[in-house]
């Protein structure tokens, strides 16, 4: 294909041809990347302009910490072109673009559901705009309205009873990663042309429902691309053309992301894997001497500033599940290429450097794709940054590379997917502990007494029999899995139809892999409960109404989190068992079933709605987060704890297994270098043993308790909870307490 002059100029000095002939960012990256194996010594401090912009934002952050939501534009449903350009500090902003016309002014996106808007506004004492309300309750159906047309009474009951919770049926599902880099590499005009060509290929296809849906979606995608161009024009940029230098590459890519967050209030809005992509442009500019290291760092710092001020309207119920206003602008750093080179570049370091230049922050959700083969200097830098900021998460590249190739990214916290080639239908999680209690009680809810599940026979006899309980539990899981898949099909059919992510999907190939991501909460509670039934003596106790509401457990039993196969095997079996039950049922659009063991902060809410469990956990007590052992039960140190988690089978939980480890900064008689070496060794070991993910916190309980009492002293205190990082002072008090009650290991790794 003949290249236009603008591409030739924009692509000067780049190698490789495949990516020029077709849309393939991956080919561009491996053809042009400059892997970097050195250390952090080249990094620059923040520029004057960066500091000025950052300074300008501080009053907003302070206000927000006190007030929550600062401002909402209630009258303008958000779209790519709904708001004119907005700035923080025009003279000093190197990268521009805001979601609305003002920083921290939140937008409404009613196509997800009107209730979310109404509830969100009510919580901050604001009234919705009557005209907008009329539009979205009378003339324009929303995703939320459609889902409830499809739901069955059984599904509604499951929601009400909190056995299935957090479903994206009233809010944007998120977890889709547009390949925002395509905007920079190709320019929007070329992307539209490519979409047109892809569309022409299906003109001859007979218009089945599937084909018509795809055609309609593609038309929307092309319209979105055109709107994206208009949006950028408002800021004075023509992104029809490819980016011609590093500043444009970052700006174009950010525009792509900005477009996505203007149109979609998704639960998780990952950025993807951009830093090493940017690096290629930066390297070229440095070589052409049109840029210095200070300029390069300034670009990355300013890009990150933008990612730190993404804001969405959300309801108090939503906040209770996912506390601290997270949006998971997840950026993947590091990893290896299929050809054995590392994808670590100087810009991987620059990205980490933002945590120093701007101080720690939960967003963007920086995710290190860890491989044994990563350059040693980079590994060491990650450990140092992690210790100073508690803002990094680590995921196993050696495990994901064979699965997703070398251009995947993480949606949300732990969901790997090929960028631009794969999406997921997000599905929150079911409460597995409650499911066990339903099995014991013949499908009745242990808190309300309502018959939610099928009326199977409850347990009989004085003491719980392991085989009997397991058989009943298995039946109940089968029912739950079926109901869950059913609900998910309803949700995503409606979401595709009424709240379609037209821009994000425009930044995908036409033919993509879809997964349907299920999840379980309470794994360690259930494993421990079953262990109690198997190895100790558990007497079920009846409350009123014939319901078993408590358990008397005598004798000792092994608990999850101590690398003890007697109970770890139970946990492994549960993961596979529930996954197999899910696999039985057909999914919407032929999506592949996956599963996560992840709770975010919802472990608190789940625990709240769940009665006493046979492991001795009392009614209302939080579950362990994600795949973590129950608080305090991993009593033999971090090594035992993480090995239990590492045993959980990734092949049956490909949407990710989240593990959070908190260690207290300890004495280091061996000195800093030795400390880092051992931590590197420990991470290599954990991932080598099959661990998938680790959140590393290096802080003490005392610091957190002090921060609870004196939030003003800790404006930027960041802590990783299951799958994401939060600003500690923005958690609810309950969740703060939960974090503090978790196991802190002495003698850091």
């Amino acid at each position, binding site marked *: 294909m003949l290249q236009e002059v603008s591409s030739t100029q924009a692509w000067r000095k780049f190698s490789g041809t495949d990516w020029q002939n077709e849309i393939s960012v991956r080919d561009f990256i491996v053809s042009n990347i400059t892997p970097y194996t050195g250390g952090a010594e080249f990094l620059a401090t923040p520029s004057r302009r960066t500091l000025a912009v950052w300074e300008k934002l501080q009053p907003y952050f302070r206000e927000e910490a006190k007030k929550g939501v600062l401002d909402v534009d209630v009258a303008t449903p958000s779209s790519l072109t709904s708001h004119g350009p907005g700035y923080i500090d025009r003279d000093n902003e190197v990268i521009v673009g805001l979601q609305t016309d003002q920083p921290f002014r939140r937008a409404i996106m009613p196509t997800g559901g009107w209730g979310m808007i109404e509830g969100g506004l009510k919580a901050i004492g604001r009234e919705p705009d009557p005209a907008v309300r009329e539009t979205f309750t009378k003339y324009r159906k929303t995703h939320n309205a459609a889902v409830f047309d499809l739901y069955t009474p059984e599904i509604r009951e499951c929601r009400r009873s909190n056995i299935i919770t957090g479903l994206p049926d009233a809010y944007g599902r998120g977890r889709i990663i547009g390949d925002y880099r395509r905007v920079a590499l190709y320019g929007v005009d070329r992307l539209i042309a490519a979409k047109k060509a892809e569309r022409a290929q299906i003109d001859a296809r007979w218009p089945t429902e599937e084909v018509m849906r795809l055609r309609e979606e593609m038309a929307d995608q092309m319209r979105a691309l055109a709107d994206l161009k208009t949006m950028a024009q408002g800021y004075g940029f023509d992104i029809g053309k490819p980016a011609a230098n590093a500043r444009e590459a970052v700006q174009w890519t950010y525009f792509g992301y900005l477009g996505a967050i203007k149109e979609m209030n998704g639960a998780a809005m990952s950025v993807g894997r951009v830093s090493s992509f940017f690096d290629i442009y930066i390297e070229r500019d440095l070589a052409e001497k049109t840029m210095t290291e200070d300029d390069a760092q300034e670009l990355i710092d300013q890009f990150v500033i933008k990612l730190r001020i993404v804001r969405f309207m959300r309801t108090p119920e939503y906040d209770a599940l996912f506390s601290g206003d997270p949006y998971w602008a997840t950026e993947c750093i590091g990893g290896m290429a299929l050809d054995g080179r590392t994808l670590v570049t100087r810009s991987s370091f620059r990205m980490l450097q933002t945590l120093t230049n701007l101080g720690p922050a939960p967003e963007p959700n920086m995710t290190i794709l860890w491989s044994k083969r990563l350059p040693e200097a980079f590994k060491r830098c990650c450990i140092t940054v992690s210790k100073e900021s508690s803002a990094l998460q680590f995921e196993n590249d050696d495990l994901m590379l064979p699965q997703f190739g070398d251009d995947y990214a993480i949606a949300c916290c732990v969901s790997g997917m090929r960028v631009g080639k794969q999406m997921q239908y997000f599905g929150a999680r079911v409460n597995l502990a409650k499911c066990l209690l339903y099995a014991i009680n013949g499908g009745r809810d242990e808190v309300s007494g309502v018959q939610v599940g099928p009326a199977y026979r409850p347990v009989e006899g004085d003491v719980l029999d392991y085989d009997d309980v397991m058989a009943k539990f298995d039946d109940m899981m089968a029912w739950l899995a079926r109901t869950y898949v059913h609900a998910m099909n309803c949700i995503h059919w409606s979401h595709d139809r009424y709240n379609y992510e037209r821009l994000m999907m425009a930044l995908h190939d036409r033919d993509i892999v879809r997964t349907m991501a299920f999840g379980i909460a309470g794994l360690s509670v259930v494993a421990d409960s079953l262990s109690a039934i198997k190895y100790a003596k558990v007497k079920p106790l009846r409350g009123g109404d014939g319901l078993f509401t408590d358990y008397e457990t005598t004798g000792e039993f092994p608990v999850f989190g101590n690398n003890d196969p007697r109970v770890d095997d139970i946990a492994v079996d549960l993961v596979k068992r529930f996954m197999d039950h899910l696999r039985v049922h057909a999914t919407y659009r032929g999506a592949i079933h996956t599963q996560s063991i992840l709770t975010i902060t919802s472990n608190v809410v789940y625990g709240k709605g769940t009665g006493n469990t046979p492991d001795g956990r009392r009614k209302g007590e939080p579950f362990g987060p994600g795949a973590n052992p129950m608080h305090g039960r991993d009593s033999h140190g971090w*090594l035992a704890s993480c090995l239990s988690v590492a045993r959980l089978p990734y092949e049956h939980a490909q949407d990710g297994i989240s593990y959070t480890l908190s260690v207290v900064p300890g004495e280091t008689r061996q000195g800093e270098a030795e*400390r880092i070496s051992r931590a590197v060794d*420990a991470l*290599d070991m954990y991932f080598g*043993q099959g661990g998938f993910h680790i959140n590393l916190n290096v802080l003490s309980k005392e610091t957190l308790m002090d921060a609870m009492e004196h939030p003003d002293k800790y404006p930027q205190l960041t802590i990783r909870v299951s799958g994401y990082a939060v600003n500690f002072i923005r958690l609810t008090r309950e969740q703060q307490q939960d974090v503090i009650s978790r196991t802190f290991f002495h003698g850091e790794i």
Partner: protein
Amino acid sequence: MAELQVAATELPEGSRHDLRRDLSPDAPEIEDYSEGEGAFGYMHSYETGSRLDGPGIRITLFLSGCPLRCQYCHNPDTWHLKHGMRVPLELIVTRLGHFAPALRAMKKSGLTLSGGEPLVQPAFSGRIFAAAKALGLHTALDTSGFLGSRATDEYLENVDLVILDIKSWDPDTYRRVTKQDIEPTLRFAERLAAMGKPVWVRYVLVPGLTDDPANVEGVAKFVAPMKNVEWVGVLPFHQLGAFKWKALGLDYELVNTPPAPRALVKRVHAQIRDAGCNVR
């Protein structure tokens, strides 16, 4: 002791920081104890992930029973065999096996036997070390050296590193600190030096008790010529174990002793370094 073996299907829960006592109320005092083949032993607790009890990352087993009575002991609940749980060797070896792949994956990582005093149970601890070596682990013995003569050459073949507490130089101070004689420890140190066995010497620095310059000097000068001693580690005293003394109804003499001040630690470091040792 049949009923105890039933209880001992699992290693004790909890960590070295948890108080335990009378897990095996019928256990003999150490003077009357004969362990036979060492197929069983008494164990207080175990912990994984420590990086203070040897090189790399450790799994640390705390055995119970100790002939010393150190004033600053953090674990007075390991003094008597009966404080620990009677566990079969087999169980320990099985559990060690669960951790072995992970430990082998990390440089120099492995097993540390601590206590109490592992040499109270030489047959038992010796067999644990042998099993750990067979699993490919690095092994470390954490000891006061008082019972060093019980560690035969064969025993020491399975020990890669000895962490030797030399609690004082001056015999009177040593006795005041431990209620025992210093001689056996020094003889053990000399034997290890002659064998070329790698050793980390440890010195607990208690203000007003072990901080006398001559006392520190003595240890440093004694150790300096020993090529096998890789490090002298100075442990500044802290109060973390005090609650156990109280709970056990023991008379804790260091109630009012402050933690070792930074300046003192610096002085002692300098003294040891000047004598020609690696210190940390």
